[in-house]
């Protein structure tokens, strides 16, 4: 993996209202084929993207939220959610989808993909990236 670059996708916007969230997810899914080191961060209203029980019936827009559950199958398992953004919106980890991945090195043990991190921790994670794509 030494040739791989670290790609960070920063998701900052609510899932609906604008198309950024959905088109960001499309980049992540395509990008997963390139064998790079991929991380996702959810900050500000972006934390709403991972909410459980999304229902878009009344707005008539495609509900793409089930797609996040597939990320583990694409080896996208470093998903950081900013603690302060959750708290500012009265949300906890329990309000988010339970995203998991299977660890090939540990007999396919199921592990959590989401890590709640503070703003300061997230800044350090951003510092380690080669590419940050902001949506």
């Amino acid at each position, binding site marked *: 993996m030494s040739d791989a670059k670290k*790609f960070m996708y920063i998701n900052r916007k609510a899932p609906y209202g604008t198309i*950024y969230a959905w*088109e960001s997810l*499309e*980049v992540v899914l395509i990008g997963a084929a*390139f064998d790079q080191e991929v991380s996702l961060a959810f900050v500000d209203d972006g934390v709403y993207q991972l909410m459980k029980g999304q229902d878009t019936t009344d707005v008539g827009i495609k509900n793409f939220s089930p797609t996040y559950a597939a990320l583990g199958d694409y080896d996208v398992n470093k998903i950081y959610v900013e603690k302060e953004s959750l708290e500012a919106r009265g949300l906890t980890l329990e309000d988010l989808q339970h995203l998991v991945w299977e660890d090939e090195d540990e007999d396919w043990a199921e592990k959590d993909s989401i890590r709640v991190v503070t703003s300061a921790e997230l800044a350090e994670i951003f510092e380690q990236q080669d590419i*940050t*794509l*902001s949506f």
Partner: protein
Amino acid sequence: MKISIQVSEGPYNHEASVTAINYVKAAVEAGHDIFRVFFYHDGVNNGTKYATPPQDDMNIQKTWSELAAAHDIDLVVCVAAAQRRGIVDQGEMERNKKDGMNIMDGFRISGLGQLIEAGIESDRLVVFGD
């Protein structure tokens, strides 16, 4: 330095596109190599040749086209985003049975993989948008 650009906003509605043009000009003048400009989200609207802005206004699409021709810059419009917004080249016209095409000279339509590749191949990937 090898630099790639992502433009995430359409022309006129948002300043990101013009700022990206100014950035590309400055980077080229400073001797840097622009590996690729990738247009995503409403940014794909930078690639239409059917815009007719008032004569005393900047023609943003044409400026991109001229910049590409002058400095041999690869302008890539995302196919998935383009299909949603009606940006069509010869291949898309035939594939999706449209009765015309509107891609500006110097632009080409291709996949999101071109953005990832730009990130891998470049020293810097700079995103212009909100």
